[in-house]
C-alpha cells in the first residue's frame, strides 16, 4: 500500500490533468492511478465534476443560434454572394 501511494499522483498533479488534456490523454497506468485518487479524494473529485459542469454549460450556451432571424440573415448572405 505504501509503495502504491508513492506512485499515486498528488492533488496538484490530478488537478493539472483534469484541466489540461484530460484523463484520456494519459497512459493507462497513470489514468488508473488518477481514477483511484479521485475515488479517495473528495476535493479532486469535486474539482473534476466542476470542470465537467463548466464544459456542459458552455456547450449549451454556445449552441447554434436558430430561429427566423438566423434564416433571414442566411438569405441576406446568400443574396450578397449571388450578386455580381
Amino acid at each position, binding site marked *: 500500500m505504501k509503495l502504491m501511494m508513492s506512485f499515486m499522483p*498528488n*492533488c*496538484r*498533479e490530478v*488537478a*493539472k490533468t483534469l*484541466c*489540461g*488534456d484530460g484523463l484520456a490523454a494519459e497512459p493507462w497506468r497513470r489514468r488508473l492511478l488518477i481514477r483511484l485518487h479521485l475515488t479517495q479524494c473528495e*476535493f*479532486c473529485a*469535486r*474539482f473534476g*465534476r*466542476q*470542470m*465537467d*459542469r*463548466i*464544459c*456542459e*454549460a*458552455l*456547450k*449549451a*450556451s*454556445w*449552441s*447554434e*443560434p*436558430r430561429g427566423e432571424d*438566423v434564416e433571414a*440573415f*442566411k438569405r*441576406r*448572405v*446568400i443574396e*450578397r*454572394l*449571388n450578386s455580381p
Partner: protein
Amino acid sequence: MATVTARWSVEDLRARKPVALTAMVDDNLPRLLAGALAIGLSRADAEEAVQETFVAFLSALDRFEGRSSVRTYLFGILYHKASNMRAKARREMGTDDIEAVVEARFNEGGMWSRPPRGPEAMSLDAELSRWIEKCAQGLPDAQRAAFFLKEVEGETPEAVCNILGVSATNLRVMLHRARLKLRECLEHNWEKSK
C-alpha cells in the same frame, strides 16, 4: 481532407453555382455565427464578421487547396476578422495570474491547502449556467475561441492551432488557463451568492 459534401463541392463553388452557394452557407452559417457570438461579438458585429467571412472565402477560393476542411478554413477567416474588429488579437503567452492563484491552493506536498469550493450538483440549473456564461465573457478572446473550437465544435487540436495560428503548446496553455479561470470564477460567484 474531404472538401465535397453530398450537397455541394468546392468545384461547384468555384463555378459560382447558386445552389451550391446556398447549400454551403446553409451548412456553415449557424456554426460560424455561434462561434462569433461565443468570442463575445455583439449580434450585429457577429453577423458582419460572418458575412465578410463568406465573401472573403469566395474571393480566396482559387487559392483554397483543400488541406483543411472548408469549415476549418472558414473559422480561420472568421477569427482573423473578429480579432481585427475587436483590435484585441492577443496571443496567450508568458505568465498569467491564474497560475499563481491556483498554485496557492496547494501545499508543498501538492495536496489541497485551500480545497475547491462551489456548486456540486450535476444538474444544469439556470443560475449556474448564467454564472458560467458570465465567467466565459471574462476570458480573453483567444482563450474563448480555443475553448469553443475544441470543446463545442469538437475540432482536433491541429485544426484549432491552424485556425488560431498558435502552436500546440500554446493551445494547451490557453485551454488550461481558460478552464482554471472558469472554475475559479464559478467558485467566486457561488461564494458571493451565499
